[in-house]
């Protein structure tokens, strides 16, 4: 299984504070892997290590290997910019570029990578917006400001923006935590549709969400991965006492 994401001995620090302890984990390609755990357990840090966004924060360091499609992201000479082009990311709060229109937001990644031809951009924008299930809602307002959309639409706009550069992996860091239940349901539908095209890793503190959208789930606690397995098995028959305590609501 060379196509998925293979993480081994991954450690991460913030200013010398050890926040991720030797994570080993293999995620299947073209499937959804969920990462759950209480606040501060390191799940966001973990996902940010998968496209080298962790090191963007001053004082943040990483060790270990992350193989994506067989290539180690942390090998010497690997350009983080190239890594991030292949591995897209959606954040907790919708963050469209406020000075750009809906169209320009989606086109931003391509345009700033040097794509100039209007026809190419138009095609890519429409494809990404359709993939993000937003095209029908915004096709008549591509010139409007990206931040004029509703919260749920903004988040789908951000997904479209990430998809426009045609990544093979999509990382989602609690993509629904700032959204209402209806908008959340739409994003979850979207995740299920995108699964056939991309490898998706989603961090969530909503266990029902993990159960609904993912094939495999990892449970993180205090910077360690306690348990990893098929989602159904992890939720119905956890092997570790701490996992059981967490999913039955005894703490966290």
């Amino acid at each position, binding site marked *: 299984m060379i196509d998925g994401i293979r993480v081994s001995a991954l450690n991460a620090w913030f200013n010398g504070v050890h926040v991720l302890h030797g994570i080993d984990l293999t995620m299947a390609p073209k499937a959804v892997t969920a990462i759950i755990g209480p606040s501060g357990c390191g799940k966001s840090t973990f996902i940010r290590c998968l*496209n080298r*966004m962790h090191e*963007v924060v*001053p004082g943040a360091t990483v060790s270990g290997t992350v193989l994506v499609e067989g290539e180690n992201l942390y090998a010497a000479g690997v350009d983080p*910019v*190239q*890594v*991030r*082009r*292949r591995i*897209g*990311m959606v*954040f907790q*709060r919708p*963050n*469209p*570029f*406020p*000075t*750009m*229109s809906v169209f320009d937001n989606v086109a*931003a*990644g391509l345009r*700033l*990578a040097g794509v100039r031809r209007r026809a190419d951009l138009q095609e890519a924008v429409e494809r990404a917006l359709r993939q993000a299930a937003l095209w029908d809602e915004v096709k008549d307002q591509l010139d409007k*400001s*990206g*931040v004029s959309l509703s919260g749920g639409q903004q988040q789908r706009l*951000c997904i479209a*923006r*990430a998809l426009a*550069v045609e990544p093979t992996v999509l990382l989602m860091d609690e993509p629904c935590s700032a959204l209402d239940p209806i908008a959340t349901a739409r994003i979850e539908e979207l995740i299920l549709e995108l699964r056939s095209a991309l490898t998706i890793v989603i961090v969530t503190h909503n266990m029902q969400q993990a159960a609904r959208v993912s094939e495999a789930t990892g449970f993180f606690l205090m910077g360690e991965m306690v348990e990893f397995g098929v989602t159904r098995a992890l939720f119905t028959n956890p092997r570790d006492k701490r996992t059981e305590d967490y999913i039955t609501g005894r703490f966290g």
Partner: protein
Amino acid sequence: MKPAGRRVVNVIMAWLTALAAGAVILPLLMIFGFLLFQGASAVNVDFYTHLPKPVGEDGGGMANAIVGSLVLVGMAAGIGLPIGILGGVYLAESRDRRLPWVVRFLADVLNGVPSIVVGIFAYTLVVLPMRRFSAFAGAVALAVIMLPIVVRTSEEIVRLVPSSLREAALALGIPEWKVVLRVVLPTARAGIITGVMVAVARVAGETAPLLFTAFGNRFWHQRLDQPIAALPLQILAYAIAPYDDWHRQAWAGALVLIGMVFVVSLAARLATRGRFSGVR
């Protein structure tokens, strides 16, 4: 406190704050009114198109000083704005702690240096080596005064751009320099322009640093390495002269100066207006 007492305090404080807000704009309104009253009669076509008349002759204008001020401020902005804005971006974006701290502190000190001292600095740096007063020396002095204002406001505004936007751009696989240039700066544009306009307005009215740099000139300037007229210098010369006609022209000069700052600010804001708003 009883509800009735609380309501009374609320009304009193609301009025006090409204009064204070009014007091802020009162001086500007009074200055403007006074200038109109004293100087409006001397502002006419001649004022904009003619050179000053010799002593004893009525009429004439300040055309050379109006153009001189535009040249001086334009040159100063040409020197000061690129350095100031880029410096501000560095202060806001740098991961280094020490150098930005030092630069920030020294910029604040520079901001507090009296403008006459900046004039002496430009005199030593430019006028003495060139052995003559010049428009260029005046522009250097004004640029030095602009620098700390532009650096500090640019830094503050760039800092206000949410880090989530930087992260969104970085996560798209955009190199950091392009993120700053194409995402951060456009988002900060409106705020940076506000800072630039504050700096332009400030130096447009500066007199002291021009006294021994640009020096003033009663005629059209021929070259930028020669003395040049400026509205504040002309206003000073006319205000301390013993002629009523010159006094009227000094008032008119002040009125035109304020009007120019107003028009330039407005034009800059309209010309650089983005379609969608960023950080202000």
